[in-house]
C-alpha cells in the first residue's frame, strides 16, 4: 500500500483547511461551506475504501507457463485473476511480474492492464517472454495494483507463488559438412545393420518407418493398436558400444577474460547440443561427458531417442565453468582408452594443448564453432 499522490493530497488538504477556516467565519454560508468541504472528503474516502477492498478481494486463479523452453525462443505467460465477494467490479487493474534469471532480475516487468474485472469472473494478463540466458528463469511473485480515481492510496495485491522455467540451450543449426569431424575416425553415416545381433538388447518399440526390417515388427503391440495401419517395430542396441564420445571442456582457462570464457562456454554448450542432435538423427549412439564440478562428472549415454536428448539438454542447462583443469584431462584420457569410439573434444581454449595433440581426438577450439554453425533455430 502506498500513498497515491503526496503532492496532490497536500494541495487538497491545504484547500480543504483554508475553505473550512474561511467558511467558519460566516455562519450564513454554512450549507455551502459544508458541501464544499464534505464532498471531496467523502469522495476520497469512498474511492480509498473501494481501492483497498477491491485489492483484498483479488484472487489468483491460474498461471499458464511452460516448464521448459529453449534459449532465444519466446513463450507466452498468462496470469489469470478473479474477483471474489465484492460489491463492485475492479477497474483499471495493473498486473506485472518479477522475472529473475541467474544474474539479472526485472523487479517489475511491463504492466498489463485489465480494464474491468467483474465480480465472480476471471480475466487474464499476458506477456511474451524471451529468455536468452540458459539456466533457470524464475517467474513471480505476481502483482496486481489498483488505484481508483480519487483514492488516496495505491494498493498492490502480491501473489507470492513462484514458477521456475528451465531455459535449455539454444538450438544451433549446423552445416551439413559437420560429418567431416568423423572422417577417417568412425563410420559416420549411421548403422546399416537392420536386425539385432546376439549381443544387442531390446530397448523399446517405436512406430514403423520406411526402411525398417519387417523382421523387427512387434506383432502384439501392432495388433493392439487402434489404427489398423499402425505398425510398431522393436528397437535393439548394443549396450557395450558407443559410436562417439563428445567431451565438453568446462575448465576455466588460466589466463584471459572471465566474461569471454563464459561467452565461449555458452557457445560451446549450444554447439554440443546441436552436435549430439545431428549425430543422433544419424542413428549414432553418443557418450557425452563433462565435468560439472571438481568431483561431479556428467556422463550420459545419448541414444537416438527424444528422452535421451531431452535429458542431455537438461544437464547442459546446468553446466557452469569450473576452475580445475585436472579432471578434464583425466576425462579425455579415459575416453581415449575406451575402445571403438571416436572422441570429439569441444575446448574453450583458443589453441589445442600440446598434450592433447598426441591424443587420437578431434579438438574443436572456439574458432571452429562458427565454421560449423549456420544459424540459431528459435
Amino acid at each position: 500500500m502506498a500513498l497515491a499522490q503526496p503532492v496532490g493530497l497536500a494541495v487538497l488538504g491545504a484547500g480543504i483547511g483554508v475553505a473550512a477556516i474561511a467558511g467558519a467565519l460566516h455562519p450564513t454560508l454554512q450549507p455551502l461551506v459544508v458541501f464544499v468541504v464534505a464532498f471531496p472528503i467523502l469522495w476520497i474516502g469512498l474511492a480509498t475504501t473501494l481501492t483497498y477492498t477491491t485489492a483484498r478481494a483479488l484472487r489468483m486463479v491460474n498461471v499458464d507457463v511452460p516448464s521448459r523452453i529453449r534459449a532465444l525462443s519466446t513463450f507466452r505467460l498468462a496470469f489469470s485473476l478473479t474477483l471474489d465477494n465484492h460489491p463492485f467490479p475492479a477497474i483499471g487493474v495493473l498486473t506485472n511480474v518479477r522475472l529473475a534469471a541467474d544474474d539479472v532480475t526485472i523487479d517489475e516487468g511491463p504492466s498489463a492492464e485489465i480494464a474491468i474485472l467483474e465480480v465472480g469472473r476471471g480475466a487474464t494478463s499476458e506477456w511474451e517472454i524471451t529468455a536468452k540466458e540458459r539456466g533457470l528463469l524464475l517467474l513471480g511473485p505476481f502483482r496486481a495494483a489498483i488505484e481508483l480515481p480519487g483514492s488516496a492510496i495505491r494498493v498492490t495485491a502480491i501473489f507470492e507463488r513462484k514458477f521456475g522455467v528451465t531455459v535449455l540451450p539454444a538450438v544451433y543449426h549446423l552445416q551439413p559438412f559437420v560429418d567431416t569431424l568423423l572422417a577417417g575416425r568412425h563410420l559416420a553415416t549411421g548403422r546399416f545393420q537392420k536386425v539385432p545381433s546376439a549381443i544387442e538388447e531390446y530397448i523399446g518399440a517405436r512406430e514403423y518407418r520406411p526402411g525398417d526390417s519387417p523382421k523387427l515388427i512387434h506383432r502384439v503391440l501392432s495388433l493392439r493398436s487402434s489404427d489398423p495401419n499402425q505398425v510398431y517395430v522393436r528397437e535393439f542396441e548394443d549396450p557395450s558400444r558407443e559410436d562417439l564420445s563428445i567431451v565438453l571442456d568446462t575448465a576455466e582457462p588460466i589466463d584471459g577474460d572471465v566474461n569471454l570464457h563464459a561467452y565461449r562456454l555458452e557457445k560451446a554448450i549450444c554447439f554440443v547440443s546441436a552436435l549430439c542432435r545431428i549425430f543422433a538423427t544419424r542413428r549414432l549412439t553418443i557418450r557425452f561427458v563433462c565435468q560439472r564440478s571438481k568431483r561431479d562428472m556428467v556422463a550420459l549415454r545419448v541414444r537416438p531417442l527424444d528422452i535421451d536428448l531431452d535429458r542431455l539438454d537438461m544437464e547442459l542447462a546446468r553446466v557452469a565453468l569450473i576452475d580445475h583443469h585436472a579432471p578434464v584431462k583425466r576425462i579425455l584420457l579415459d575416453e581415449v582408452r575406451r575402445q571403438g569410439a571416436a572422441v570429439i573434444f569441444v575446448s574453450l581454449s583458443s589453441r589445442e594443448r600440446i598434450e592433447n595433440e598426441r591424443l587420437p581426438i578431434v579438438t574443436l577450439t572456439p574458432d571452429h564453432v562458427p565454421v560449423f554453425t549456420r544459424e540459431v533455430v528459435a
Partner: protein
Amino acid sequence: MLDLLRRVDPGFYAKEPYLLGAGAQVPRYSEEAQAEARLAVLSEDRLLRAAIVVIALCAYLVVTAAGTLDPRTEYLPLWAFAVVAVAMPRALPWWPKAGRNATWVEALVGIALTAMPALWTPLQPLLGAVVATVAITLLAARGRGRWIVLALAAIALWLHLLFVSVYAAVAVGAAGVIAVREVVRTWRFCPQLIAWATLGILLAASAYAFALEAAALVHFLPLEIAAIAVAYVSVCVVAGRIRRAELSARPEGLLSLPQSIVPLLDRSHDHAIICFR
C-alpha cells in the same frame, strides 16, 4: 580441416560480444516518451475538455455569486475570475492548438459571463466597463499573452486579498507558489495530480469567496451548491479520463536487462530477458 580453418576469423570470439553491443542497455521507452504518449491521448479527449470548461464556468458562478458581485467595489475580482475562467482551460498543455477565431469566441464567452447578471439585476454602467475590459483582455490573450493575462489576473486577486489581510495574502501567496511549482514540475509523470490540483484550486477559490464575498454569496446559496456539485462531478470525470489516458497510453513495452553472454549469431538484442506485453 585446414580448409575449414582458413575460413575462420581468429578474432571472431573477441570481437563478437562488442559487435553485438553486449553489456550496453538499450532503453526502449522512457518516462518522457510515455508522458508524451499520455499527452497525445489527453489532447484527443473531448469529454475531458468539456469537463474542464464546465468546472471553470461553475467555479465562476460559485465565487462571483452568479456574477452578481458589485462592480463598483468588486470590479477587480469580477474581472480576474472571468478572465481566469475563460482563458485558463485553453492554456492547459493538452488543449488543441487555438484556431484563428478562438480569441474572438473567448471574448464573446467572457462578455456573456460578466454581462449575465444584467438579465435579472438593474443595469449598472460600471458593469459595462468590466464587460468591456474582460473582452479586451481576452482578445489580447494569444500565445504568450495568455500566460501574461493569467498572471495579471492572479496578481489582481492576490492584491485584493492583500488589502484585506496582509498575513493571509502572504501565506496564501507562498503556499500557492510552492504548490504550483510542485504540480508543474511533476504533473507530466503523475498526471492524476491535475485532478487533485483542480480540486485544490476549486477549494481555494471557494475559500477566497467565503472570506471576501460572503455578503453576495448568501443570496444564491442553492444555485452555488448546485454549481459546486456540478463542478465536483466534473472533477471526478476529469480524474476518470486521466486514469483512462494513463492506461491507454501505457506503452506495449519491452523491458529487459543487459547480459554479458550472447549466444552465437543472435543479433537481435543484447538482453538476458525480454518481456513484451
